[in-house]
């Protein structure tokens, strides 16, 4: 009889202590979350995430670099030869299989994020005088990745093609990235 009562008291005590422990865990987690979440991009950072660029002054064959979300975006005004080269590639032979048509909205304008998909360096090749690798696109000096005129990875350690950011043509020569 007494043992029973004691046992009952024991379970009830256990229950109370477990519940209290659970409250402590939930409470600590709900305090930790705002602290962690505060490190995510703030509202003013997010508000600046679109960039508008006037393409009119960019000559055929010329490339420009613009800043979007703190990163370089390459915009290349491709020549017909470069477009031809990009379209003639056998897609099934590529590491990251994407036809050129999926990577551009207007064939003469290639817009890609200028960050090597290997470890984040900025490839060279924006100027015609710079090394562009054997596929005529960009060459990453850090670890030797080579990209073609569609910004696709052709050689070296990088796993993916240069990313295409979200963008739209507001007019024929005005583009909004983001």
């Amino acid at each position, binding site marked *: 009889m007494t043992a029973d009562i004691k046992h009952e*008291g024991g379970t*009830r005590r256990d229950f109370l202590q477990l*519940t209290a422990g659970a409250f402590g865990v939930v409470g600590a987690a709900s*305090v930790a979350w705002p602290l962690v979440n*505060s490190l*995510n991009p*703030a509202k*003013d950072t997010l*508000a600046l995430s679109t960039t508008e660029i006037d393409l009119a002054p960019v000559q055929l064959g010329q490339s420009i670099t613009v800043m979007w979300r703190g990163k370089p975006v390459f915009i290349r005004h491709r020549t017909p030869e470069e477009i031809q080269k990009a379209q003639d590639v056998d897609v099934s032979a590529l590491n990251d299989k994407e036809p050129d048509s999926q990577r551009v909205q207007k064939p003469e304008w290639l817009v890609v994020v200028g960050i090597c998909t290997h470890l984040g360096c900025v490839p060279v090749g924006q100027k015609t005088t710079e090394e562009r690798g054997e596929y005529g696109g960009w060459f990453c000096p850090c670890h030797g990745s080579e990209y073609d005129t569609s910004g696709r990875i052709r050689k070296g350690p990088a796993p993916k093609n240069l990313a295409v950011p979200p963008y739209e043509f507001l007019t024929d020569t005005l583009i909004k990235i983001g």
Partner: protein
Amino acid sequence: MGSGYRQPFKNPVVEWIDSRMPVFTLMQKEYGVFPVPRNFNYFWNFGAIAGVMLVVMIATGIVLAMHYTAHVDYAFDSVERIMRDVNGGWLIRYLHMNGASFFFIAVYIHIFRGMYYGSYKKPRELLWILGVLIFLLMMATAFMGYVLPWGQMSYWGATVITNLFSAIPLVGDSIVSWLWGGFSVDNPTLNRFFALHYLMPFVIFAVVFLHVWALHVPGSNNPLGIEPQTEKDTLSFHPYYTVKDTFGLMVFLLIFAAFVFYAPDYLGHPDNYTPANPLVTPAHIVPEWYFLPFYAMLRAITFNIGIPGTEIVFITAKLGGVIAMFGSILLWFVLPWLDTHPVRSARFRPLYRLFFLILIAVFALLGYIGSQSADAHWGPVPLSLLGLACTGYYYAFFLGILPWLSRYEKAKALPSSIHEAVLKVKAPAAIVILAVLCLASPSARAAGDAVHPPAQHWSFNGPFGTFDRASLQRGLKVYREVCSACHSLDRVHYRNLEALGYDEAQVKAIAAEYTVTDGPNDEGEMFERPARPSDPFKAPFMNENAAKFANNGALPPDLSLIVKARHNGPDYVSGILTGYEPAPEGHELLPGQNWNKYMPGHVIAMAPPLLDGGVAYEDGSPETVEQYSHDVVNFLTWAADPYLEERKRLGISVLIFLAVFAGLMYAVKRRLWSDIH
């Protein structure tokens, strides 16, 4: 540390670690089975509570430091960015701001508990001294932290406190310019204060460790002040006091949360929502409430000390004040040797108890005096004189009364052991808490003969208050059509207007009505473009000088924070907008001056801005000055405190959670202790 005999643990992982570094044995010994007197009252909770507050301050502080910029040009803006743009930033900052106050509340109760029950006496002198050291470190940390937001109070607080050191004879001025790193409080000062403010909490943490170490050698004192003799007198720390401490902590956090969510700026000062201005001192500067008693002692010494009737001065009034202030805390270091009475607890020392309770009252009164302006009176009594009397009592208590009582006070008979004594919580509990909370009374209003504007009903008041969206939109219209001709609204962006009930397209359209300067473009030229939602509200003037020049030399303040930067902001701003009157007989106004009954000093440069019918409302609301002012104040309150609604909503859940948790812990504690009593 924890070496010597060790009981093996059953869990192999725990045992593997413990046999190499006996951290589990140590925790078990110091926090598991550690014997604690069984007769603690709730005052003994505050050590643990203070420890938790230190962790809260460090955790929130580290995150704040990641968002803060320690530069005079950016500090204020970066704090406002935390309040407006950083995810949950307002909550983290309010926790940190109010956390400082609540840390001090816990520590003051902890200190006065130690004094009341004689916890500083042999063999706990070193424990006490380490505690006083923690308190000093806390004061320094809190002071430097208050400088970081770089508001008016930050700047002038830093100026006044650093100038204290100029009272030191001969080398004072050199020390002050060394502290500043320049000729005034400026960027170098802010940078070093930030570095030190980040460092000091970890020093405090280390001293707390020593404090706890020093506690665990003699063990805790208790309300009877007699040492435990047998196992009957003690309980294991876990679970008895872990549970009791958690319950006390939850009640404490409940009050803390009530301030954070419902009165986050109550313990602060509105002037600190005005950016620092080295050219203008606010009318009435006061330190944070927890420094007020010491500040009152500083101001109590208003006379030179020297040979009367001659010009010979040994101690100037300035130095005397500084000595009185610092000395009042330094005295605590030698308290164990000022009070050498063999009985610890005030419970058995009626005279000590009486004089000590008077000391608490005097300390609270000093806090009140410190909050008032230097020339304030209580009836015919100048408060400074009262402050001097209180300071006198404070010193007399430590230097005269204590040594005298040590020798002559006859104590009541002590009980023979703790478990035989009748245990009951006495009234002083309430007195000390009340005294400390009294200090937290709102600080004094700016002096002047201004009439206080009438309190209005605002929809955002109260724990469930929300903004009236229609009024916010009308208020925006009033701001855009009237106020924005002279007043900027720098901290509000067009994108923020979605909170007023506009959709994305409407916000874009509003922004596009403004033209802003951007650039330079590729040719190096600045150019004009329509504003985007990500732009801040366009300011009416290029810069401050242009604004002053266009307004007869008076700078129209930025309105982003005006409601927070004034006492009773909504009523005050509304009062100013509606308080214009012809100047009474005998008051000559200069050209460009106007008479306003609610303006401190009554003379205001701003011409009456609102006229009946001046702004067309589309929703049929009355087009009167009263309605305009009500709407624009609603709008400006939102501009100053955009998370008001979210804060109040979240507060309800937090308070409910803490209340349930506290109730649960109380049930656990009752259950646990039912076998003990």
